[in-house]
């Protein structure tokens, strides 16, 4: 289970669902100078770049991965707006091969990368050029049920075409409750979809506006501090052994039965959460 190798013949599938509601304009982790929506876009762009690099070989970027990035919000009438965050040439279908993503960034931005300089004993900045695929959006409500319903359809079709592959992974990032009612009846069917190598995995990341205490990869819902956390816990899959072992090997304190979920994350929490997905890449051939 969850041991299928990942290659061009047996690719993996990642689908990101990004909350684009109003509240995503709030600060992240108590730091008023950074907004959740901006940090999320930065994190996703960084993740895509990371996966492109891993997928790169001498003959270019190998299509070991198909990736979708879907944003969800509502208009001012409350109607759901669900669209791909990947635009232009890569906005024509929900899932895109990683090589095509590499070929079509929205633009290249110059950012300052912070690094610790041992010799100087201080942080230094290095200008780097980073491709941007996803831009921040924050507007309206949180139609979580509609987007989960869409995700189900996308995975159902993908699995029909890839019955032997590593199961698709859904990475959902939100900062608040669904404004469309209980999302669990829409998440359960997704978790029951499966390939020969195991059930679809759903990971949920929750962003906090304040410097709240984060909860990483919980094993029981008894430590969930509020209803939203309980809902997300129920929607999150238990981490497969392989992923958990790799995280433990990197120094994380992982419990058996820990779920793919982070609650009250700040930027560090978000990035560490997204890393869990990249550990699948260890299966890359």
């Amino acid at each position: 289970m969850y041991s299928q190798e990942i290659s061009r013949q047996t690719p993996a599938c990642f689908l990101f669902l990004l909350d684009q509601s109003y509240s995503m304009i709030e600060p992240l982790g108590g730091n008023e100078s950074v907004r959740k929506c901006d940090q999320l876009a930065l994190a996703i762009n960084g993740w895509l770049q990371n996966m492109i690099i891993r997928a790169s070989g001498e003959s270019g970027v190998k299509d070991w991965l198909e990736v979708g990035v879907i944003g969800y919000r509502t208009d001012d009438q409350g109607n759901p707006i669900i669209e791909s965050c990947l635009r232009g040439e890569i906005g024509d279908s929900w899932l895109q091969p990683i090589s095509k993503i590499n070929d079509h960034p929205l633009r290249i931005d110059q950012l300052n990368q912070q690094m610790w300089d041992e010799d100087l004993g201080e942080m230094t900045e290095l200008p780097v050029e980073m491709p941007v695929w996803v831009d921040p959006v924050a507007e309206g409500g949180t139609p979580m049920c509609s987007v989960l319903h869409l995700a189900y359809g996308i995975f159902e079709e993908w699995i029909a075409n890839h019955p032997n592959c590593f199961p698709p992974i859904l990475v959902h990032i939100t900062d608040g409750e669904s404004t469309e009612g209980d999302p669990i009846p829409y998440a359960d069917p997704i978790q029951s979809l499966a390939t020969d190598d195991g059930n679809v995995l759903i990971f949920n990341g929750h962003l906090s506006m304040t410097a709240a205490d984060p909860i990483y990869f919980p094993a029981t819902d008894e430590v969930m501090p509020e209803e939203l956390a309980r809902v997300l816990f129920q929607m999150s899959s238990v981490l497969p052994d392989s992923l958990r072992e790799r995280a433990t090997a990197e120094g994380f304190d992982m419990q058996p039965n820990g779920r793919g979920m982070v609650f009250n994350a700040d930027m560090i929490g978000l990035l560490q959460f997204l890393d869990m997905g990249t550990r699948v890449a260890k299966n890359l051939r």
Partner: protein
Amino acid sequence: MMNQDFQLPGCVIFLVDESSAMDVPIQEDLPNLPPGQSPRPRAANVSAAINSWIRRLGADRDPDVTIVGYKTSKEGEAVVGCRLDGAFGDHEFVPVNDLAATPLREEERVQRRPNPAGFGPPVEEPITIPIWYAPEPEGKAPQVAAFEFCAELLDRWEAAQEGSYARPLIVHVFAAGSADGNPHKAISQLLERGGDDAGPLVMNIHLSSAKLVPSTVYPSNRYYLPPGVMKDLYDRSSPLTESQRHTLRLANVPTNPKAAAMLYNAKMPDVAQAFKMIEAEVRAWPQKPVELAPTLPVDDFPPLSGDDLPGDGAETVNDDETATIAVSDRGYSLEKSDSPPVSTTVEDGSDADSLPDNVWSGESFEIVDEAETVPGNPAATLLKEGLVLLLCDRSVADPYSVSDTAAWPKLQERANAILTQAGKAADGRLELAVVTYGVDGAGETDVRATFEGPLVGQSFVKDEALTEGALRVEENWIQVPDGTGGLTSIPQTETIFLEQEPSAPAGTEEALNAAAGLVNQWCSEHPDACLPPVVVHLTRGPGDREAYHQHCQQLTDINTAAGSLVLYHLVVTEQPHRSVSYPADDSQLEWPGLQGLFELSSPLLGREELSVSKPTIVAADARGLVLNAKFDLLWDGIRAALADDSY
């Protein structure tokens, strides 16, 4: 902060949107609004701010001011022009003191002030407010025509100046988008007049269009602004000048060197603060060389304080002068007005205008809390020092089992982090004390009120001595975001002061006695401290609620010249509970014990500045209570309170 390079003052142009978008109520939370009342329209709020600005500056300054409004008529024609009317109907610019002397009319308003008895409902008093600007919004917003008009206005004003003058200020306040084309070119031409460091300074203030969206205030990083209006506004605003950044820094609004004079989605407190910054800028200008006696009768203003002598470069006006002009060389502080104040209220960052012409009539912007003023205690004699005492509850539910949910290990980590931060930001003003409490092996209450390690035996330790005096120092590598969507490792030094075992639950009486004893001792040795003593109680929640409330009184009863003791609670619960930070009410607290802690927690020090710089996290009446989160604003708030001259 005198502009020594200029002989003459500049001029101020208020460029105000008068389109129908300004007829819409302001989009912000007004917790003090009486029930049944809706917020007043944007135009009313903005004109009130401008009228108030004119009244304040007209008292003792004379630079030229004008108000340019823009809208369209019913036929769609642009109606752009100077709105000064009454005695100055045919003038473009008018010296602000002349303007102040002859209002268009006066209006009766009702002002709500706190009950002088100290309790009970606020008292309503009728007051009269002078009005110079009373816009009637209609139609659309012809911004291109408006900015072109400003350029022509400036041409004429500059031609009339005889000598070098300070940079004119254009303060653009608007809600609607431009209806007559993209104003970018018109504004760029204004910005580029005169070259790099000359020419007018253009400030753009966009009024809040969404209550829940926080304001973007003086942004400096264009990259992070969303494309569209915000990025455009950044390009159309002048950078803040050094003196403007200094003024904002004094009000605890940090800005970066490339910060733009721009507010997006601004709420009225942001507008008020920006207007005060403009006021400070104007006060730093030289006076005109022509003698201008203010025509205001002196009895309208209480006598100035002793430092009103025209020392530091202020021009004295002729001997018949009825009011001297005070220019302080420490620069104008947003905290306390040096000009004749017409009220005795404490400046409050969230209070749009602390003067009694509460022009937000019927909707009290901030009920001034007179308990916060320090009557009879001029700021000069209070010393900038203070005490922060950490009261630490070492109890856990079960001291014999190792549990992830145990509170004390987490609280101890917080206490050490708080002391580490105090040591890093130390400037010699604060002293720290630590009291921990638990029960010992024999079941006896165990209260320790001194530091350990190199600082052993000391109850009070100066913040500068903390880092050297740690029990031990830990160097860890932690991961931080690297700015490109990745993580990088950096070394972090943590100083450890507390390393005590968890204990079974203990009563709070002796611990509170010990804390009160220390506080009283310190206060008697430092009677002139400007900060009231601060006690931060780190706890997992009081076992016996009633006993705690009772024993707390010896702390909460402590009153000093600087105010009554400030009691905060930093709580880590062992049963799961949602995280709560700086709440303004107890609605998010699920258990009666926690609600009780809310009642006992003092309002957060520094909340006036913090509620403006961090409006989504800190409300104007936020309390010093943090549950299952970091008390990240503890030192920011205390430093803001220390910086506040009124303490």
